[in-house]
């Protein structure tokens, strides 16, 4: 039996790691509702498991999504994960082939070069030695990038990297020390016995020239084992817990485990899956434009994990979804944020009994302007003009003032009270028997679609206008004006409506390209989801967004949300208009009416 005392730190660490991870995973599974546990059981024994394995390889090992966002950072994560995984895999194959048995203790493969000195007699021996050295180089190159990232984060194209607490640094250093120690231990062994590959052999020979390799290499094996042991024990308590947890998360997603609005087990798994890679930090405009740098998802998620959520952090977020869009783990950071707000804000106070219990007129198409559209009458007027001149029959649901859709309450974390408003609106919509609900406000649109369960067609006015154009109900004249389009968060990232506004706009004018659009578009700053330092942050952000949108010197800025319009108009030197306004102005029939009116006026003035 091969044994040396230095294998103990490694073996103990691995044993503890195993116990702790199993304990945590079984906790998550036990806390799931029965229905989800059944889904999990069924999923594991279905073909879905192959999808899980594929995604684990692509994301947990190769880190494809990080590559897409930032190649250097992707390489760093990939070299650690994939390089180390291959070292373990190939090392195990090598040692098992050599020993001719499956029954090795885990440490045998790890410290193989200590136990076996003579050149290998297994098939492809040279190949194995080469591969092992190759992956060690890969991991070490990743380590070098990680080191430079810590010193100067712009190396990997990040303005800021995640700020770490002492324990995180401790866990990180234990990880970083593993590979240099491994390199030293293996090279020294190679130097002593003239084995090793393209990296370890020359290095070993070099050391042999001036160092007492015997005792030194023994010390290095100890150091290597201790670094591994320390890393394993700190893993469950550090951010590296994301490594095993991400596999659970991927499985949960593929097996269709339900998400709720509350902080549930799915969200807990998401929290532990965050690697604190810091990609979200640079994406957050509160950081880049308003110098608020303690609330970003990386920190917010950590505070949940440490169970010391601060209300000010939980509430200080635009819920703009930018960080979520770029999170390589696919954590739903917006839902997470709202679930935490519910903990602080879900008090039941509201009483909406004063709301009218109208019996609505039956109609096919309902138009809901929403509170914010009532506050921007030009949008409302434009929409009514479009609807009236297209000749369709519709009913203006909130003509006499809106009953709020409920999303503002929901965004503040008060779901219980929001449900009361939603029920009132739902009753009105249901009893109108409409098959289509058109809204001008993306905030209302989102809650109508996601939370009302209406089972009717719910569309934004840009979508409705596009279909009216397609059906020939209205036609537009292109004014040739250069237009810069601002994607509203709730409409774009929230609901994936990117093309319809663009299609309509390109018929009213010339749509300019913009370097931050669609998924990476900016938040106007006016989000009603943020109540902390609202005016201060809002103005700083709106100002910079206007500057960005004006960069190509457009004639006007167009958007598709009354709240975005309100935020941007404050700082714009050029016109800011909702798409509905532009459509209303460029409608051909409208133009005809206008010129007829003009002619009539001329005639009259001549007569006079």
């Amino acid at each position, binding site marked *: 039996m091969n044994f040396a005392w230095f294998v103990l730190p490694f073996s103990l660490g691995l044993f503890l790691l195993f116990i702790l991870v199993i304990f945590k995973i079984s906790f998550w599974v036990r806390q799931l509702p029965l229905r989800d546990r059944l889904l999990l059981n069924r999923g594991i024994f279905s073909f879905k498991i192959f999808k899980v394995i594929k995604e684990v390889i692509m994301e947990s090992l190769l880190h494809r999504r990080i590559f897409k966002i930032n190649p250097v950072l992707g390489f760093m994560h990939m070299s650690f994960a994939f390089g180390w995984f291959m070292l373990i895999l190939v090392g195990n194959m090598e040692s098992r082939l050599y020993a001719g048995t499956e029954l090795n203790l885990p440490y045998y493969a790890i410290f193989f070069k200590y136990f076996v000195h003579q050149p290998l007699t297994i098939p492809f021996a040279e190949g194995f030695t080469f591969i092992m050295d190759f992956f060690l180089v890969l991991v070490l190159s990743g380590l070098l990038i990680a080191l430079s990232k810590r010193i100067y984060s712009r190396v990997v194209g990040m303005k800021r990297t995640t700020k770490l607490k002492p324990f995180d640094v401790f866990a990180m250093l234990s990880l970083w020390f593993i590979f240099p120690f491994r390199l030293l231990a293996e090279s020294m062994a190679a130097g002593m016995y003239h084995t090793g590959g393209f990296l370890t052999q020359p290095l070993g020979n070099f050391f042999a020239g001036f160092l007492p390799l015997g005792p030194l290499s023994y010390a290095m094996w100890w150091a290597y084992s201790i670094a591994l042991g320390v890393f394993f024990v700190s893993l469950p308590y550090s951010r590296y817990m994301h490594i095993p947890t991400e596999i659970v998360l991927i499985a949960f997603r593929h097996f269709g485990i339900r998400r709720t609005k509350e902080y549930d087990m799915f969200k807990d798994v998401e929290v532990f899956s965050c690697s604190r890679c810091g990609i979200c930090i640079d994406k957050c405009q509160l950081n880049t434009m308003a110098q608020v740098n303690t609330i970003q998802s990386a920190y917010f998620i950590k505070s949940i994990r440490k169970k010391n959520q601060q209300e000010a952090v939980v509430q200080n977020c635009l819920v703009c979804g930018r960080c979520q869009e770029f999170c390589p783990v696919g954590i739903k950071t917006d839902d997470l944020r709202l679930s935490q707000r519910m903990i602080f804000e879900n008090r039941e106070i509201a009483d909406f009994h*004063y709301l009218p219990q109208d019996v609505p007129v039956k109609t096919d198409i309902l138009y809901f302007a929403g*509170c*914010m559209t*009532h506050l921007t009458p030009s949008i409302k007027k434009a929409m009514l003009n479009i609807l009236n001149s297209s000749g369709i029959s519709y009913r203006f649901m909130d003509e006499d*003032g*809106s*009953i*709020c859709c409920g999303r503002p309450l929901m965004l503040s974390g008060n779901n219980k009270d929001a449900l009361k*408003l939603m029920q009132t609106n739902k009753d009105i919509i249901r009893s109108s028997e409409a098959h289509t609900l058109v809204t001008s406000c993306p905030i209302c649109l989102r809650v109508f679609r996601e939370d009302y369960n209406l089972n009717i067609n719910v569309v934004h006015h840009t979508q409705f206008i596009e279909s009216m154009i397609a059906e020939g109900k209205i036609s537009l004249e292109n004014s040739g004006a250069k237009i810069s389009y601002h994607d509203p968060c709730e409409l774009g990232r929230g609901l994936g409506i990117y093309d319809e506004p663009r299609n309509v706009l390109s018929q009213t004018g010339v749509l300019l390209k913009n370097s931050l659009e669609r998924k990476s578009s900016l938040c106007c700053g006016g989000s009603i989801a943020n109540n902390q330092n609202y*005016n201060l942050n809002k103005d700083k952000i709106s100002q910079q967004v206007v500057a960005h949108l004006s960069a190509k010197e457009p004639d006007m800025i167009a958007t598709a949300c009354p709240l975005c319009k309100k935020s941007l108009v404050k700082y714009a030197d050029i016109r800011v208009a909702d798409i509905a306004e532009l459509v209303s102005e460029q409608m051909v029939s409208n133009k005809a009416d206008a010129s007829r009116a003009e002619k009539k006026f001329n005639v009259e003035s001549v007569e006079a």
Partner: protein
Amino acid sequence: MVDFGYKIQADRQINLDITNKALANFVKKHENSFNTCIGCGTCTATCSTAKFTDFNFRRLQLFIRRGETANVKAEIAKCMLCGKCQLACPRGVNTRNVIMMIKKGLEAHV
């Protein structure tokens, strides 16, 4: 009492030195833009809730400042938190947060 068709109003004097300003102070502490309100009533003019009922945010903030908090809970319950007032306010009062802080303060102080 005989109903003469009119009555004597209850005493409306408020001694500002002894009124309970705990709620007002709580709101001011957690949302200091509350201090900048000039009671202009723009918020109430645009208020979604005020379309359907006599809810009046301008009056409410005055009651809170004066320490007349008896009706605050029933009144604040009517707000839909839609945010129109915030966009309309000429003084930059973060009214939505004021409303949330009133709700929170009610739990602790009344």
